[in-house]
């Protein structure tokens, strides 16, 4: 019976860990999205250095999470998000408002897509 109880405990532990992981990951993507939003607001108001600074801080924070993200997310998705962040930073550095805006929307979509991959829904499970 010990073996069976251990099996049930392991399953419960994994399920609980998975649910906790979803919350943690959503918190991370949520805070990254608000930092990106803040950078975009600065860009729209013409405060380009401030926008660059905010986005650079956001990129550094995202990079500091690589240990965690590489364990839980497909590496191809991480690479896509890295590219989107770099492209948005490039657009901010070039001071091109229309380019920055399109890169911003693309980055937010990419972030939402990664967050959605870890959410439980009929679509993601099936």
């Amino acid at each position, binding site marked *: 019976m010990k073996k069976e109880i251990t099996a049930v405990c392991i399953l419960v532990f994994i399920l609980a860990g998975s649910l906790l*992981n*979803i919350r943690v990951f959503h918190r991370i993507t949520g805070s990254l999205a608000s930092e990106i939003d803040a950078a975009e607001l600065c860009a729209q108001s013409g405060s380009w250095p401030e926008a660059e600074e905010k986005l650079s801080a956001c990129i550094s924070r995202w990079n500091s999470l690589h240990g965690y993200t590489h364990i*839980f*997310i497909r590496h191809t998705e991480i690479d896509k998000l890295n590219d989107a962040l770099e492209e948005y930073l490039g657009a901010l550095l070039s001071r091109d408002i229309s380019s920055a805006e399109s890169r911003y929307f693309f980055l937010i979509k990419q972030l939402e897509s990664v967050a959605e991959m870890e959410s439980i829904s009929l679509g993601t*499970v099936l």
Partner: protein
Amino acid sequence: MAIIFLRTLILFICLLTATRVMGKRQVGELEPSELVVAVLISDIAAHPLQDISIPMLNALVPIIVLPCLEIIVTMLTLKSLRFRSFVCGKPTVIIENGRIIEREMRRSRVSLDELTLALRRKDIVDIGSVRCAVLETDGSLTALLYASEKPPSASLCGITAQDKPLPVVLINDGRLLSDNLRFLGKDGKWLQTELRKNGAKSVSEVFYFTCDSGGKTYFLPKSGGRAR
């Protein structure tokens, strides 16, 4: 991670049901749940090895979850007869009193050729001599002959037969198995005497050496020698 967990759970249930629907023919020597785990694990493990962009955790979670599910299913089959018959099926009688039950054969999708093959493997060539044949849940066939067709046993012949003691391996390819030597209650001195008796100087010269509790030995030296 949660998605992988749920997908593993869904796939396990689907594959288990599919294996049951496929019938006993497909199962072989494994129970359906064991077959499902064996099939899934071997494939899951290969993906992160081939594609390094897939996190290792994607394979580790199902590899941990599947045996846990298998243990739980096995426990449930032991606890509930209904669940056991759902997961493993029921044994099917396909020959009764020397007559093949066609309906059961069709239901189990066993052809006449397969049935006669399984019987021949049991040295049975005459279906009329079979009192009862059962297709077990693991796909194997159990055949019970009429008493008149069974080979005579020692008790039927009124002979007193004695069980032979089991031989214990003492030397395996030049290696001494000390635990087995102790189990037999022998020591190194006895072994040396036996080796000398058989023309060997050391354990390394012996390929295979056994002894039973009655003291009967079997000696096979390394290449070229003759068994004694």
